[in-house]
Every structure is written in structure tokens, then in C-alpha cells.
């Protein structure tokens, strides 16, 4: 197990380094941030002064290694636009995005697994067809369009829920969260639902397929022969087997939830990192872009690690191999 963890940390460091190189060069290639930061009538002397203060006068490799040297000490540079440490700017916005993504994940699991189980136990029935058709809509309708429709129906037509912003937040256990106030929750519902729809469709399909593959297996038949109730067979025997593929896919997809949050955050004016990164790319604010992507990559690595741990909790055979 220790060797496994050490190997994982080493791999993670390599992935982070490779990402840093690619993003650094990528943003450098897009354009010169000075063009955007400086007013059009700036003199050459002003240009040089700003370039020097931001370290943009040096050749790219030098800039990169300076960045790398600082990064290993936890300093990812100062934002060109906000003139504050990039990591601070990101961490300030990240909780809002994480809260949104986590709520979306919960919605997709809490609704998706029961719907998938229901559809899976009644193949080819009216219930199954309805749920499956619904999930196709969830998959194929563009995310931004779904978002606008939600606003149209629930904010404009019915006037039940607010359409923009994060609303009031409160502090619970030292974290600022929308769950502390009703206003916060009301603001969270629409964007979280918007973000959840695609995931919901995925969870339904995964669960349904899992049920249909597991039900004909001998151990289900033997469980029936032992006189267990259908409820116990479905919720314990079948569920525990199909959770393994669901956890795998959801783990990977949680990352893309954060990425997709860009669209949702833009539509609902949610003050998260998604909106920050779009603005920063527009302004060629390299420290923010690089630091953001490194944070996201680090998050993916942690999620994968969590998935591996969950595996061994769910499947005794994995546990045996890891020991």
C-alpha cells in the first residue's frame, strides 16, 4: 500500500509538471498580455517598465523556470489583472464552484439511481421507456439551452426561483456556503439542476444497464431461492455490485462537472472559478490560467485516488489484491 501511494504521488508530480509546460507555452502562444493590459497610447518606455515588472521581458524558458522555482514554494505568481496572488484569487472563487458541482452530483445520484433501478427492473415497460426517453433528452439537449429554459420557466414564467447570482451565504463549520440560508438555497437550485441534467441521464443509464446485467446472474437466483425479498435483493445484492462501475464513471465525471460549470456559471452569473477562467483567458492573465489548470489537475488526481479507495471499500476482491 505504501509503495502504491508513493508511486501515485510521483505520477501526480509528473502530470502536474507536464500540464504546467503545456499551459505555459499555450498561453504564451496566444498573444502578448501587454497589448491588453496597457492603454493603446502607451509609450515604449511605459511598455518596457510594465514588461519588466511582470517579468515578461525575459525569454520564455527563463520565465518558465522562474515560475517553476516559485511554484514549488507555493507561489504561482501574481495575477496581471487583479495584481494579487493567483492562488488567492482562485481559492476565493473555488468554493462556490465546488458547492455547485457537488450539489449537482448529489441531485444526479439521489434521482438517478432510483430511476435507473426502477427502469432496470421493468425492462421494455412504459416506465422504462419514459425514463429512457427522458434521459436521451438530458444527454442531447445543449446545456446552455437547458439553462435558459429553466430560467424561462421557473424564474420568468412562474417566478418561483431567482435566476442569477449566489444569494446570501452563511458560515457553517468555517466554510461559506449557500446552504446556510434559504435565499442561498433558492439561488442554488436552478444552476445545480442545470449542471446535474447531463449527469442525471448518465447515472440513470449506468444504473439501468447494471441492473439488467446483474439480475439474470446465478447469485440473484440463489438469493431468491433462499427466500429473500425482492427489495433486499435489489437494494443490497444488486446495488452493491453495480455501485462499482457507477463510482468509476462518476469519479471521472465529477471533474467534467467542474469544467462544465463554466457554461452554467456564465448563464446564471454564478461567481465561481468557471467564470473567472473565461475572463482570465480573455485577458491573457497567464498566472491565473496556469494556476487554475494546475488546481483542476490536482483535483482530478485526488478524485481518482478517492475512487480507488472507494473501490476497495465496495469490492472485497480489490481489497485482497491491494493488501
Amino acid at each position, binding site marked *: 500500500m505504501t509503495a502504491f501511494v508513493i508511486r501515485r504521488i510521483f505520477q501526480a508530480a509528473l502530470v502536474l509538471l507536464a500540464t504546467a509546460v503545456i499551459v505555459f507555452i499555450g498561453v504564451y502562444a496566444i498573444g502578448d498580455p501587454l497589448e491588453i493590459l496597457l492603454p493603446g497610447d502607451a509609450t515604449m518606455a511605459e511598455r518596457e517598465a510594465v514588461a519588466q515588472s511582470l517579468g515578461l521581458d525575459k525569454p520564455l524558458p527563463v520565465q518558465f523556470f522562474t515560475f517553476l522555482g516559485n511554484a514549488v514554494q507555493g507561489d504561482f505568481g501574481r495575477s496581471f489583472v487583479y495584481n494579487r496572488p493567483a492562488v488567492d484569487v482562485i481559492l476565493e472563487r473555488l468554493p462556490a464552484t465546488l458547492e455547485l458541482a457537488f450539489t449537482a452530483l448529489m441531485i444526479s445520484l439521489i434521482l438517478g439511481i432510483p430511476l435507473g433501478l426502477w427502469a432496470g427492473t421493468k425492462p421494455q415497460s412504459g416506465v422504462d421507456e419514459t425514463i429512457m426517453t427522458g434521459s436521451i433528452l438530458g444527454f442531447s439537449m445543449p446545456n446552455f439551452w437547458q439553462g435558459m429554459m429553466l430560467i424561462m420557466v421557473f424564474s420568468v414564467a412562474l417566478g418561483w426561483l431567482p435566476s442569477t447570482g449566489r444569494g446570501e451565504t452563511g458560515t457553517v463549520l468555517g466554510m461559506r456556503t449557500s446552504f446556510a440560508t434559504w435565499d442561498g438555497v433558492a439561488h442554488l437550485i436552478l444552476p445545480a439542476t442545470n449542471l446535474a441534467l447531463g449527469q442525471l441521464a448518465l447515472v440513470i443509464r449506468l444504473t439501468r444497464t447494471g441492473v439488467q446485467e446483474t439480475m*439474470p*446472474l*446465478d*447469485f440473484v*437466483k*440463489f*438469493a*431468491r*431461492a*433462499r*427466500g*429473500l*425479498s425482492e427489495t*433486499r435483493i435489489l437494494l*443490497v*445484492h444488486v446495488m*452493491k*455490485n453495480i455501485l*462499482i462501475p457507477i463510482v468509476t464513471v462518476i469519479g471521472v465525471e465529477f471533474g467534467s462537472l467542474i469544467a462544465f460549470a463554466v457554461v452554467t456559471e456564465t448563464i446564471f452569473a454564478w461567481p465561481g472559478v468557471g467564470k473567472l477562467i473565461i475572463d482570465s483567458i480573455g485577458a491573457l492573465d497567464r498566472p491565473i490560467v496556469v494556476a487554475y489548470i494546475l488546481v483542476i489537475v490536482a483535483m482530478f488526481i485526488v478524485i481518482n485516488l478517492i475512487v480507488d479507495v472507494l473501490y476497495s471499500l*465496495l*469490492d*472485497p*476482491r480489490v481489497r*485482497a489484491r491491494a493488501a
Partner: protein
Amino acid sequence: MSLLHIDNLHTVFDTAAGTIRAVDGVSLTLEPGQIVGLVGESGSGKSITGFSVLGLLDPPGRVAEGRILFKGRDLASLSPREFRALRGDRIAMIFQDPMMTLNPVLSIGTQMVETVQAHRKVSKAEARARARDALGRVGIPRPEERLAAYPHEFSGGMRQRVAIAMALLHEPDLIIADEPTTALDVTIQAQILSVVQGLVADMGMALIWISHDLGVVAGLADRIAVMYAGRIVEEGATDDVLDRPRHPYTAGLVASTPLANDRGQPLRQIRGTAPSPLNRPAGCAFAPRCDHATEVCGQEPGETAQGDRRWRCFHPLGGQA
């Protein structure tokens, strides 16, 4: 009153290709404590007969005709809840492949405790104690520790012992064993056989042992019922059937069993293959493979009974029947 009385059972599967008559008029009676070997080739309907009794047919399978009486009660009249209460309690089943019958992600203890609690209102500790005793009875060493183990930590033979222990937790009146030794090594096969034999004798349970292996059944069963193409073609006391088979199919099965004194001789086989259940010949289904077949075999052979022997054949072997 007989323990189990199957009367003219027809089990069919409605498929796109047509209706498959997997079980086509089977009648069988079991007395308490009796052991019956249900013998036949793959596809003869012997396993489907077993699943019909337990009410565990996979769709689109259904009982189209006939009655199954268990202790005089018509099983078709039971509600799903009543049937569930019967399964695993009064009627138990042991499956063929022990690698597949236990849930891989639940511990043996969990699976045994749930089986106890499905039928008895007892505490978890009490259920665990019963589970431990049951594991001990089937010869699992250190049963207390093994309750925490998962199926993959057992060998095939040990898993089958665990499955047997689970099936016998409530000392059922009837066990249906569907080829429980087929997937195992020969030495393990013998161990499992002796475990089951011992337990059945101790508890006085009736047993339907489904098998394609006459050798296994010969040493175990009181009676043998031979199935062919969805029907019982011959039934009687084990020694009587094996020594004096009346149906040519039974005779063919007996002749094709390898014996030590036949060393060096080519095995005798029954020519041809069993007919597809979708397209069975009219009349006697065995006629196309039978050396004794005549024109009359194009008609349905009725059942002939003589003492406690019965067969379905126009040209029975031996005797002047």
C-alpha cells in the same frame, strides 16, 4: 400425504421463434425423506422442472398446465409472499456452479444471516450462531472466523459447502439439487456428495438430485426418473432401473457409462443428438435415435405402469410386458 406431487407439469417458454415446451407433461411424486435422481441430457428439461417447483422460472418461462402440490398445497395458489416464505425455508435449492451462486461483494456471514432473518424473527447474534453451526455441519474448518470471509477466499468445493450450508439453514423438507457436483473436481465431487448424503440422512430431508451422471445418482438415490425431451420416459427404484432398463434410452445411458471392467473397449454411445425443443418429432421423441423403433413409434407412447415401475415405450426391453 406425499411431500411433493407433480401432476402433468407443462413448462413453456414463449419466444419469437415459437413456443418451447421445455417440460412436456412431467408427473413425479416424492415421499418425505425420499431421494430421487432426475437424470437426463442437457436440454431434457430436468433443471426447468426443478425451477418450476420453486417458482423461479426466468421470463418468458411459465407453467402452462399441470399442478404442483407441496404437502397437499397447490403452489400455483400461493401469493408471491407465501411462496417466498416457502423458498429457503421448506424447499431449498442448491445450484450447479458454486463460483456464481454466492454474491461476490457480500461476506459469507452477511449472506447467511440474511437467510436466517428472512424466515425467522431472531437477533443478529442468534442468526450468526445458527450460521456458524451450519458452516460447521458441512465441514468448514474454523466456521466462526470464516463468517467474515468473502466468496473469493474459498475454493470451489468450499464454496459449494457454503452454498449447501445456506440452503440447509432451516432444515427444509425438500432440497432440489441442480447438478451441484458437475462443476467440481472428481475428488471434491465425492466429498460434496458424502456431505449431502450425510445431512439428508440426519435431517430426514427429501432430495431431488438433478444430474446427467448416472454414476453419481446410482450411489445416492432411492429412485431414478429418466427424462428425455421434456418427459419422464422411465421411473423406478434405482437398482431396478439400472439393472433392468425398460426404455431403450435408459439402456443407452447405462451402456454409455464408463465402467472399470470395460477397459480398452470403445464406449458405446447413443447415436444422433437430442431433438431441438422447438422441433420435436411427432410421437416418441426418441424414435429417430432408437434401434427398436417401428412405425407405431410415430404415435405418442402412453405410460405403462407395473408395480412401482413406469415407462413410456411401445417396445420395452426385457420382460414380457
